[in-house]
């Protein structure tokens, strides 16, 4: 052992002292600066997960509303709004559950709120009930006619355009403006109250359009005429032409 120590040059032995101090201070600093749970599950502080997990919940869910307001929830669950949770309109309710009297919830009563979902926008999916606010009973609050918990229309819509505004607007500026919707779409009365389960029909034969547009059809001479025998014989007319705007490509 003494031999080995003698072999090591003096300068190396002296150098060892500051090097070991450096290493020791690094280990000390590291244990002081890095929290003990760092690296427990990965290259991060394990307790950060718990800090995030411990955040407060604000949206408590419809089941909590049902405990007290079971009548309203039951009514809503039978209506078109069955999939719209209470907190969509009434706001986050966790505080209200804790202290029902201290933290009252609000309900949107102004005309601007319902159009967030129901204003007509071309990007909205077809079939979703939409209105044009400027022409749909202007100045009247939505809740004056509609019960938000059971939003079926107060009276069955008389005109198709009440729901199919997009198609009605397109057709109104087309050559088919004079053709009524029901001329092509057989629509049962049930469609007005249960639109998805009672769908209107579509013309399924070429001869239907041909009743106006065939060469020998008994109709105004100004109409476009085609020869049903040679014109696109494999297809029903609306597979190529858009009947609500027939002049489009």
């Amino acid at each position, binding site marked *: 052992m003494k031999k080995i120590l003698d072999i090591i040059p003096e300068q190396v032995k002296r150098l060892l002292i500051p090097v070991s101090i450096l290493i020791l201070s690094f280990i000390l600093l590291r244990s002081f600066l890095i929290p003990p749970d760092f690296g427990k599950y990965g290259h991060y502080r394990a307790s*950060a997960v718990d800090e995030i*997990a411990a955040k407060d919940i604000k949206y408590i869910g419809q089941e909590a509303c049902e405990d007290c307001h079971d009548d309203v929830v039951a009514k809503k669950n039978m209506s078109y709004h069955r999939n719209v949770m209470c907190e*969509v309109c009434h706001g986050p309710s966790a505080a209200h559950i804790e202290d029902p009297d201290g933290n009252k919830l609000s309900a949107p009563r102004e005309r601007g709120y319902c159009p967030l979902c129901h*204003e007509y926008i071309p990007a909205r999916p077809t079939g979703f009930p939409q209105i044009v606010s400027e022409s749909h009973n202007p100045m009247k609050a939505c809740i004056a006619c509609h019960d938000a918990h059971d939003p079926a229309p107060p009276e069955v819509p008389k005109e198709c355009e009440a729901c199919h505004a997009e198609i009605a607007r397109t057709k109104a500026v087309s050559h088919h403006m004079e053709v009524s919707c029901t001329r092509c779409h057989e629509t049962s009365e049930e469609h007005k109250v249960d639109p998805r389960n009672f769908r209107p029909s579509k013309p399924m034969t070429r001869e239907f359009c041909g009743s106006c547009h065939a060469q020998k059809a008994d109709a105004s001479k100004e109409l476009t005429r085609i020869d049903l025998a040679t014109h696109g014989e494999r297809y029903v007319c609306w597979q190529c032409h858009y009947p609500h705007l027939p002049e*489009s490509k």
Partner: protein
Amino acid sequence: MSCLSVSFPSLLAAKDNKNNSILDGSYDPQSHSWGMGIMIDKCIGCGRCANACKMENNVPQLPFYFRTWVERYIIYEGGEVVVDSPNGGVDGFKRRIHDKKILRSFFVPKLCNQCDKPPCVQVCPTGATFRTKDGVTLVDSKYCIGCEYCIQACPYGARFLDPQTRVTEKCTFCYHRIIKNMPPACVEVCPTQARVFGDRKAHASPLVRFMRMNKILVLKPYLNTEPAVFYAGLDMEVR
């Protein structure tokens, strides 16, 4: 380093959060892999998700700070594409005046894609952003130094620097809710069920059904980030 086999045991702050399942050890991150499905055809662009997210997570109410937001795509005849997202959709969308004919138009809700291979985690110099065992990328706000590397690295623009705390913020899939078996706030309030949330590892979950019933796509698949947010009915123009 990491002990893979144990579930989260009781850690700090156990005193004031007794009902918290992650703290009492009843929640096992190993057995979950969270994901979200989004049905483009169902989204009506009401923006209630973006609004609820801000409420639930105390996101700054100013514009440009979003954990989730809704974009509107308008594709005109001739191929011109216009994308807008006024205030992230929090105040809803207004009808635009068009001088051209619309070919197709739709809404796309966006959020952090909770990638299986997150580019943001790779670039973090302090270990402040990390991916948990249950597939959620989180930010340790005490460790984040606000260098914004991760904000630049995210190809989906899902991160932002909180103007008050000066640390990075992002969607956590509402981690504080999902560990208690509650859906994220955006999923909770979606009036048309355009958002579906669930466990990819589960035998049966709403997400598993969504992935079985739909043809699905992810955003920017060529980046190999392997997102956990799946879109049904995604258009080729969506970036």
